[in-house]
């Protein structure tokens, strides 16, 4: 197992999808065959499309009684051999947190799509925000690591969902696609390729399913029904799954491994795009929908001869520490526009050795390019 080329389930060509439809198609393309969810705006179209499209591919769709049941049934299905996913938004994402920690500790590969809306509370259900990025990393109790991706286009909703399944399977970890209302409901042209790369779970009969020192700290993963007599538990466990709830060494070894198997591979996982960094005095660090406005802004400013650049974070977690450290040594200022009260800026400040300026907006609307242009102009 590992990466292989497969034929796309959709015929190749161009489609006109909403972001949420593209997520559903990306999941099916990547091999997702179990989906459980609970209705919530602005993510529901994902589940609606899956419920119809799964008929073509013999997938199992379940509308569960709540988001807790959704994430838990997804974990159950994954251990029964499925590639599985759920999608939600703020309040549902909050309900899923205990299950997310369970998935991290049991090294259960799965994909969670969060079409972010304006919170806290029920907030504004139909409005956009990127307020859940810290929650994605820190939402469940204890020390664990996950992978979170940030698509900026409908094409990327499709591509990144496929990527999310591949990363989940490769690293045995929950992976988040952190979309938002604007990208979820935007319609754009999407190119579907005839052949795609898909990672399938590594299996090795008799190998300890929670063992260290194999394959970069990522153990092979058997399924129920294969005669392996699996012991899966969300309590601290040794390499074969026996509960060890008072052994300090087993606990620290397990917690370290589930974090380090991701962190040691961060250069392979974390992706950024860069624009005009060569001579940039001011660099915008942006992600998700906001990066569209940021790109428009720097192109505008470049026309005026301004030395501005952009780093777009395609991966939020693990954070792109190296490139930020690097540009932080060359640029005068880093500008971080966010649809929240300042979340990713904290990470930028950890690594950048220069002035870092926030631009925050929490009014349920996208950040318009002219606001970024004005903000950057003041720094030049």
């Amino acid at each position: 197992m590992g990466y292989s080329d497969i034929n796309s389930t959709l015929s190749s060509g161009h489609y006109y999808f909403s972001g949420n439809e593209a997520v559903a198609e990306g999941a099916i393309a990547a091999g997702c065959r179990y989906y459980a969810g609970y209705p919530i705006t602005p993510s529901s179209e994902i589940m609606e499309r899956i419920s119809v499209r799964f008929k073509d591919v013999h997938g199992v769709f379940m509308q569960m009684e709540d988001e807790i049941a959704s994430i838990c049934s997804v974990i159950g299905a994954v251990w029964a051999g499925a590639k599985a996913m759920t999608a939600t938004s703020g309040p549902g994402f909050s309900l899923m947190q205990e299950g997310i920690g369970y998935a991290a500790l049991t090294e259960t590969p799965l994909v969670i799509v969060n079409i972010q809306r304006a919170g806290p509370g029920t907030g504004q259900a139909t409005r956009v925000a990127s307020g859940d990025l810290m929650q994605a990393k820190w939402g469940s109790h204890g020390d664990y690591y996950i992978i979170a991706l940030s698509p900026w286009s409908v094409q990327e909703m499709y591509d990144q969902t496929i990527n999310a399944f591949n990363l989940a399977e490769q690293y045995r970890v929950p992976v988040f696609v952190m979309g938002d209302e604007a990208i979820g409901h935007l319609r754009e042209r999407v190119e579907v390729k005839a052949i795609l790369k898909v990672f399938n779970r590594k299996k090795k009969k008799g190998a300890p399913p929670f063992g260290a020192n194999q394959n970069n700290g990522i153990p092979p993963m058997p399924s129920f029904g294969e005669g392996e007599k699996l012991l899966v538990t969300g309590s601290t466990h040794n390499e074969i799954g026996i509960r060890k709830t008072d052994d300090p060494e087993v606990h620290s070894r397990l917690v370290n491994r589930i974090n380090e198997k991701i962190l040691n591979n961060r250069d392979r996982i974390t992706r950024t795009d860069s624009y005009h960094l060569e001579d940039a005095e001011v660099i915008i660090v942006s992600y998700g929908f906001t990066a569209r406005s940021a790109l428009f802004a720097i192109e505008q400013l470049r026309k005026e001869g301004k030395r501005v650049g952009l780093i777009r974070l395609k991966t939020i977690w693990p954070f792109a520490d190296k490139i930020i450290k690097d540009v932080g040594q060359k640029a005068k200022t880093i500008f971080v526009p966010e649809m929240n009260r300042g979340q990713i800026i904290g990470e930028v400040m950890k690594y950048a050795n220069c002035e870092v300026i926030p631009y925050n907006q929490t009014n349920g609307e996208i950040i318009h390019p002219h606001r970024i242009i004005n903000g950057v102009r003041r720094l030049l």
Partner: protein
Amino acid sequence: MARDLEEYLRPGLDSTPFCPGCGHGILMNLILRAIDELKLSMDEMLFVSGIGCAAWIPSPHFNADTLHTLHGRAIAFATGAKLFNPKLNVMVISGDGDLTSIGGNHLIHAARRNIDLSVICANNMIYGMTGGQVASTSPLGAFTSTSMDGNIYRPFDLCKLVLGAGAPYVARYSVTQPLLLVSAIKKSLSIQGFTFIEVLSPCHTQFGRRNRYDSPADMLKALMESCISKEEAEYLTKEELKNKIITGEFNDGGS
């Protein structure tokens, strides 16, 4: 545990974690006895449990696939596994607090959907693992660590609850009725659809000592005396039924 059932236990384990007088060990035996009599293959069994003492009945003891989940969520996990791989024979074993309080919503919905799961609820009428707090199944007046003056809230009738949600097979027995219980477990494993067995399983450590049962044996004796069959119950007045536990099959799966 009877020697002839040892082959169903995970090799390398030499004891259970249960307290002296706990009913969960008896239940463990009876579940394996039912599986043995049905000649089911442990390779096709998946045991799912939540969190609590009862959740340790299958995990790690049963030599089969086991999924020890979150508190209250066993049925939700089991639903995903069963629907994705219908060949798995999925049994859920967990406590009353786990399945019917924190997990009550999953219980009624799985019953309503008639998901093909055999659910065994080990009801000790208290939160055993966390130190004897009042449960949604504690009798009126029961003394617990959070109802020191006696429980003031009515307990659930779990069988009526699950019946109301539409389960095709619902039964209640006590661990003091081993033969009836084995036959009920066998039935539940043979019926396609959602089956629910409430098993009264005494907890002397947390419940008995606080409620004036001097020894585990006293508690078992009291349990035997309070359990009556539903047929007997038909002839008793409301007054006579007070403090009785009605056992039997409340929906027999059409057999």
